[in-house]
C-alpha cells in the first residue's frame, strides 16, 4: 500500500540507468580513437609567432558541399556527444564510458585541407605543446597521437623529431581521403624515417569531409554516400599503396592502424591482392622504393603485410542480424588479432564498448580481452 497515493500498488523506483554494460566496467578498455578539441583561445596561446598575432580564428578547411545541415540534430557528425577541451573533460568521459586508457586524436582534422602547410604545422605544434604542458601531466591514462601537417612530410618529420620522444605520444595522426595523396607512396618516407626513430604507430584516420573536391565524389549528395560509404574505398586505396609500393619492406617495424575506413571488405581485399600479385607483379620493381633498393618484388604475399603490420579500430561496428554471419565476418577478418576497440567519441557514430561483451556467441572471452585492450597493448609499445 502506498500511503500517499491511496493505491494498493508497489511504487516503481525512478532510476538513472547506466547504459554501459557492467562487464565493460570490470575489464580493461583502451579506446584507440577519441577526438580532443582544445579551445581556439587555448591553442592560440601556444602558437608561435607570427601565427599567434595573425590568426584570430580557427581556420576552417573549405568544402564545396557538406551534407551536415540536412541533419536535424545540431552538431551531427562532429561534436554530437560533447566536446572535450581539457584533461578534466577527458577523464570525466572515460569514467562515463568505462574506459581505462585513451588515445586522443586531434579533433581538428580539417586543417589538413587548408592549403597553407605552414599554418597547419603551426597549429599542430601548438596542439602538441598544449598536450605536453597541460594534458599529459594530469593523468597517465591519457595518451595521444601527434598532430602533424602530414601533407608536407618534411614538416611532419620536423614535428615528430621535436616532440616525438614524449612517452605519452604513441602514434602520428594522418588523414586519408580521396583528396590526399596516398600515405603509402615514397613521398612519405621522410616522415616514416622520423617515426621509426621513435617507434610510433602510424594512425590513418578517415577524413570524409574533403572527398567532394574529387571528380567521383563531386557527384555525391548525401550523408550516407559521403560519410557512410566513401571512407571504405579510400581506405583500401591507401592500404594497397602501402603494401604494393613496398612501405613495409622498407620499414619492417612500422605498424599502422586504420580508423573509420571499415574492415568487412578485408577478406576480398587480401584475396584479390594476393591473386593479382601471383599473376601481375612486374611493375612493383618500378616503384620508387624498389628502384632505390634494387629489389624486384615484394618480399611477402600482400596479405601477410596486413597480418604483420596493420590493425583496424572498430568504430563504427556494424553487426548483421544473422548470428552466424557475424561470427564468420569476424573470423574472415581475423578480428581476434587485427581489431582494436575504438569509440570515436564524440562523433555521431560513436560506439560504446558494450557490443564487445554483448555478443558472447560470436566473441568469446579471450577475444573480448584482445579487442578491448590486448591488441592495442601489442600495437602501441608505449602504452
Amino acid at each position: 500500500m502506498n500511503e500517499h497515493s491511496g493505491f494498493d500498488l508497489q511504487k516503481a523506483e525512478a532510476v538513472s540507468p547506466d547504459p554501459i554494460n557492467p562487464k565493460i566496467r570490470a575489464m580493461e578498455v583502451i579506446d584507440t580513437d577519441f577526438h580532443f578539441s582544445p579551445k581556439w583561445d587555448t591553442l592560440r596561446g601556444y602558437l608561435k609567432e607570427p601565427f599567434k598575432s595573425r590568426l584570430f580564428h580557427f581556420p576552417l578547411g573549405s568544402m564545396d558541399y557538406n551534407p551536415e545541415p540536412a541533419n536535424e540534430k545540431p552538431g551531427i557528425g562532429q561534436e554530437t556527444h560533447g566536446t572535450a577541451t581539457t584533461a578534466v573533460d577527458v577523464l570525466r568521459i572515460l569514467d562515463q564510458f568505462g574506459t581505462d586508457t585513451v588515445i586522443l586524436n586531434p579533433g581538428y582534422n580539417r586543417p589538413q585541407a587548408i592549403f597553407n602547410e605552414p599554418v597547419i604545422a603551426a597549429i599542430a605544434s601548438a596542439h602538441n605543446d598544449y598536450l605536453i604542458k597541460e594534458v599529459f601531466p594530469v593523468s597517465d591514462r591519457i595518451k595521444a597521437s601527434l598532430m602533424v601537417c602530414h601533407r608536407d612530410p618534411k614538416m611532419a618529420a620536423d614535428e615528430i623529431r621535436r616532440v616525438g620522444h614524449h612517452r605519452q605520444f604513441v602514434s602520428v595522426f594522418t588523414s586519408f581521403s580521396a583528396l590526399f595523396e596516398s600515405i603509402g607512396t615514397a613521398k612519405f618516407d621522410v616522415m616514416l624515417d622520423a617515426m621509426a626513430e621513435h617507434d610510433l604507430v602510424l594512425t590513418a584516420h578517415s577524413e570524409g569531409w574533403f572527398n567532394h573536391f574529387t571528380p567521383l565524389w563531386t557527384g555525391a549528395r548525401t550523408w550516407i554516400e559521403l560519410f557512410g560509404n566513401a571512407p571504405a574505398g579510400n581506405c583500401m586505396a591507401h592500404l594497397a599503396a602501402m603494401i604494393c609500393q613496398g612501405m613495409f619492406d622498407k620499414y619492417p617495424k612500422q605498424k599502422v592502424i586504420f580508423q573509420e575506413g571499415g574492415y568487412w571488405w578485408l577478406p576480398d581485399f587480401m584475396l584479390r591482392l594476393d591473386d593479382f600479385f601471383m599473376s601481375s607483379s612486374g611493375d612493383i620493381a618500378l616503384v620508387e622504393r624498389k628502384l632505390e633498393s634494387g629489389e624486384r618484388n615484394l618480399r611477402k604475399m600482400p596479405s601477410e603485410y596486413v597480418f604483420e603490420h596493420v590493425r583496424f579500430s572498430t568504430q563504427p561496428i556494424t553487426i548483421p542480424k544473422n548470428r552466424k554471419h557475424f561470427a564468420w565476418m569476424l573470423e574472415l577478418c581475423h578480428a581476434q588479432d587485427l581489431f582494436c576497440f575504438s569509440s570515436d567519441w564524440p562523433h555521431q557514430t560513436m560506439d560504446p564498448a558494450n557490443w564487445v561483451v554483448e555478443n558472447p556467441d560470436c566473441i568469446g572471452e579471450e577475444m573480448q580481452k584482445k579487442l578491448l585492450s590486448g591488441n592495442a597493448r601489442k600495437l602501441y609499445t608505449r602504452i
Partner: protein
Amino acid sequence: MADYLLGKIEEFPEGKGRAFRAGTRTVAVFRSGAKFFAMANRCVHKGASLCEGEITENGTVVRCPWHNWSFRLDNGQSCHDPQEKIRTYEVRLEGDQVILCA
C-alpha cells in the same frame, strides 16, 4: 506482469522521458502532451538509454540519444526498419497518478 505506481502526472515533464525499475525491467516512460508511453529503456541498436532520447515528429517518436535510431512511442516500431522494434508497455492514468503495467 504487475502494476506499478510511477508518481503524479506533474512529476513528468512534457516531452521528456524518465526511467523506472519495474521488477527486473528498466522501463522508459515518456509524456507527450496528455499522453503517456512506456517502452523498454534499452535501444536495440547499441544499448543506449532511450529515456535520454529526444521526442520528435509532433510527439509521436523517440529518437535514440546515441545514434538517432527512431521508434514510434505507441508501438515501439522502428521508423525505418520493419524488423526492429522496442517492447512497449501499457501506461494508464488514475486520477493524477501514472500507473505502469510491466
